[in-house]
């Protein structure tokens, strides 16, 4: 009965239509991109029949493959290292609520609010001052640093929602701290670790500004390559890469969603 009454709150005249408009707005550019990636012509807005030729072009393009490979390697390493750091930080901040956990939390999440261009310039200044030559290594270091806060938040959320008595029970049953950690805490944390890793991975994969500034000559990633293509002129080849990236992102979102649901059931 009460849900029936609450339903009254959902049917404001016009709101439904407005929300449909908002959804269309969110999807419009993405759908248009995907449709024209199958265009037979060279135009990104004039339809000339269906074809897969732009996908063939993408798969035949050595530069794109190198750039994509660089992106994936950097994202995997950066996300993994950042997740390990973030795990340590999350356990420490959740444990140390009284001993400065809040302060550590603020420090850890602050970078999320700093405009990326400022971080990018700062990283560049730092690398130049220290004397590390720009390239693959500087991209990797910068990515690890800015991925840590993103990996940290889901892990911390998972830790806080976890049944806290289980590790204590393990200790009561004479599990050594190391054993209790490895066999109880870590397995329970897996959903948080996975979503933290995925978030860090996708953030690293998509990053443009910081990468563009610390890449130096020679090193390139997929976003840098796409930007270069956009400057040269728009062809459906960019649409095809974008659609492939979109498909990859969708698969990742679905995986993290399924894991999230599995995590909630426990």
């Amino acid at each position: 009965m009460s849900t029936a009454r609450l339903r009254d709150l959902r049917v404001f005249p016009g709101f439904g239509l407005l929300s449909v408009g908002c959804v269309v707005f969110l999807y419009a550019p993405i759908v248009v991109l995907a449709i024209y990636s199958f265009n037979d012509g060279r135009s990104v807005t004039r339809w000339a029949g269906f074809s897969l030729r732009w996908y063939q072009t993408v798969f035949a393009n050595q530069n794109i493959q190198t750039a994509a490979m660089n992106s994936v390697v950097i994202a995997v390493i950066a996300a993994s290292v950042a997740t390990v750091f973030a795990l340590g930080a999350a356990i420490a901040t959740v444990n140390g609520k009284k001993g400065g956990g809040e302060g550590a939390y603020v420090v850890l999440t602050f970078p999320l609010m700093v405009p990326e261009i400022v971080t990018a310039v700062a990283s560049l200044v730092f690398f130049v001052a220290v004397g590390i030559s720009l390239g693959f290594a500087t991209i990797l270091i910068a990515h690890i640093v800015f991925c840590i806060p993103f990996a940290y938040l889901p892990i911390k959320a998972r830790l806080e929602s976890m049944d806290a008595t289980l590790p204590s029970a393990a200790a009561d049953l004479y599990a050594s701290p190391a054993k209790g950690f490895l066999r109880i805490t870590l397995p329970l944390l897996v959903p948080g670790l996975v979503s933290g890793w995925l978030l860090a991975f996708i953030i690293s994969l998509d990053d443009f500004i910081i990468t563009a500034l610390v890449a130096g000559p020679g090193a390139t990633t997929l976003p840098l390559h796409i930007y270069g293509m956009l400057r040269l002129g728009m062809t459906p080849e960019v649409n095809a890469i974008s659609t492939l990236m979109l498909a990859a992102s969708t698969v990742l979102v679905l995986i993290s969603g399924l894991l999230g649901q599995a995590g909630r059931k426990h």
Partner: protein
Amino acid sequence: MIERRFQLRWPLGASGSLLMLWALPVILLLAYVLPFAGVTLWSVTRPEPGFENYVRIVTGADFQAIFVRTAWVCLLSTAITIPIAYLLAYYWVMGSARRSRLIEICIFIPFWISVLVRAFGWVVILRNNGLASDVAAAFGLNGLSTGRNVWSVITGMVHFMVPFAILPMASVMRKIDSRVLLAALGLGCRPLGVFWRVYLPMSLPGVFSALAMTFIFSLGFFVTPMILGGGRVVLTAESVFVQMFQTANWGLGAALGVVLLVVVFAILWLSQRVMRIEQLMSR
């Protein structure tokens, strides 16, 4: 009674965990503070020691124009983002299961798509002789001004920020006790009245956090104005880049970066009470 304060077991012991608590924040602090100190140093030493760069930024008509434009674009795009995000957050939290699922998908998928790709999608739609002008022409509206202008930039920014703005609002809306709404209905308030007089005031904290977050985000926009504005709509973040890398005015670029950072910190400080960065992540 023995107080059993919960302590997560963890392999390094108590002193190890204290070390761990501060090790990473300190590393991160260094990773951010040292470079930022470097930038600040550059801003007052290049090309020569002094506050020349800041004087130039404050008095130069070109920079004033950039700041005014940035302020307008950010205010407008925030003002457009918030109602759209509120509506979607409302249906996400209150809507029927099916609709809620649908909205959840459309929040999270664009969330994960590269900012470059999204901006490019809008270029295709909005550029001269693009899809938008074709559609408008079909309705008899010719000569509609599209292409590289402020409105394209705002469209792209709003599109990027809506999913981010939904999260803090939805997390506050979820905590609203539905019994309060039922009570208002039961006491004879009409549904629209319940929304205006009960639901909206109770969801305002979420709106404030979304507002602060969106505005701070919008200040740092770089890729979207660059692609959709095509050099005609230069905002502060892009001008940092232009000064550093196109005109090689390193000191000036650094000073602009410092100004941007100070403005962001000031807004963060002001909004600290209503804002929790954590809400960014909570579903």
